[in-house]
């Protein structure tokens, strides 16, 4: 069996990247993990975000249950070579 960890992340804040003169050269988005949400694996509701799930090695389509406020709408992954301590991490972003 293989292991997967699905997160739903939201942007909590932005932090500016400054150069030596204190000029803003970029921005880093600060993410936070949002509370547990039910997952859809294949066509079944199975498991929640923020938990490490045991799944068979191979191809899986992962999505989240409504509300439809996340992107991408679905992720197709090939799960292999994971352990319970280092699962494959998949992230959806909150829109």
């Amino acid at each position, binding site marked *: *069996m293989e*292991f997967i*960890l699905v997160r739903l992340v939201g942007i909590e804040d932005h932090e500016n990247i400054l150069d030596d003169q204190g000029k803003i050269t970029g921005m880093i988005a600060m993410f936070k993990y949002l509370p547990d949400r039910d997952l859809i*694996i*294949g*066509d*079944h*509701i*199975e*498991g*929640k975000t*923020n*938990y*490490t*799930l*045991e*799944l*068979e*090695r*191979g*191809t*899986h*389509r992962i999505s989240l249950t409504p509300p439809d406020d996340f992107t991408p709408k679905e992720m*197709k992954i*090939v799960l*292999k070579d994971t*352990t*319970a*301590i280092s*699962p494959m991490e998949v992230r959806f972003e909150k829109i």
Partner: protein
Amino acid sequence: MKKYKPGWFLLLSLTISVFSFTGCARYLVNDPLENTSRTICHDFSLFDQTPDDDETFVILALSGGGTRAASLSYGVLKEMKNTPVPGSNKTLLNEVDIISTVSGGSFTGAYYALFGERIFWEFESRFLKRNIQKELALKVANPYNWIRLASPYFSRIDLAAELYDQTIFDSATFNTLAPKTKRPFLIINATNLYHGARFEFTGPQFWYLGSNLCSYPVSRAVAASSAFPFLLSPISLVNYPKPQGYEIPQRDRDALEDYWNNKRRYYAVYNNFIYAAPTAHKIHPYLHLMDGGLADNIGLRAIDDLYARGDIRAKINSGKIKRLLVIAVNAKTESRQNIDQKKSPPGLVTVGFKTATLSMDNYSFETVEMFKERLNQRIQHQRYLDDCQKLIDDHCRDKFQLSPLAGGHMKLYVAELTFDNIPEKPGDPDIKGRDYYSRLPTSFHLSDDQVDDLIKVGGWLLKNNPDFRKFIDQYHP
């Protein structure tokens, strides 16, 4: 004008009626799906249960082995009925969620799934203590049935199914098992002769055939499951053209991409998909099913599939199961006979029988061990995570939390009940030594005393199984 004698007329009309009658004798076919909007009949994922009902998840796998297996399984059910679940007013039998059956075990499993605790006052007289073999032979010997058997579409297995239907299963169909709250969920296993794969009588399996399981008699499923090669003929099913809007589940479509990633997952779907592909009803219009023991004589492969990729996996990942107990009732015997005491090599019949049964026994052993290893791996992963978290807590300032494993610290138990567990001198006056049980024949007729002995030893094997004892001792509501 030529005159015909009345005798010739009689013979001619008799011949015509015989031929028209044999043309009429046909096996009962499965019904096609009417449309794709209806819910699948007899589908475990559709069973409505309160979350509490899944906390203790009990599975029974009942092996093949004729009346010997049916009696042993029945003895186990009796003991489960007498075993209270600690801290509740339920018995362990009330907690059974799934029964997966093969051959002889299918009679016991199907009877309990259909009629519940009626089994305890009916089953012995309705099945276990009957001479089913003799009754089948009498049916075959009946001239009325000779005519029917002359049809290419009617064979001995259809007579057996009729006998089971009328005298054991009260003409029940899978519709009786369909109500969404009626557990245990029954999985009767047979073998598809085309590719040798396991075939289960469930709604999702019939979906691949474009067929509705609801109207199909349970007796025919049991007959297929117990159609021992050579003695009985196969049960046949029709693979239908699929109605508009028909699709196979997304999970299966994903598995079909996994030939190189996971062949076990790929073939579990592919063996069914060949019947569901768009032109499959033309390429594979029929299926012929025989004894489930040819694919898996212990009934655990169905459970392994549900655990690896099916509804048990979904329940574990959703954190619904706290403790999982699998009781595998294996009625295999020590079929060594006296082969190694004779100078001359065994004859054709012995070799034929050995060829049919040796692989079943070896494969059953491997199936149980493989399943145990699978569950042990889960326990190990839980332990790795705990140990790793402890190291982080002890040595890192930043108290990083590893993500918890879905299902948490689920407890898993596999209790295999086999005659090998019995000592040669058990020290219990009701229980005979191992050799006695190991030499009982595989047939549909045992003496009343033999049946009684098997019922007693079924209970004894459960009570004295260390994994089962562990389950009871560790049970904290």
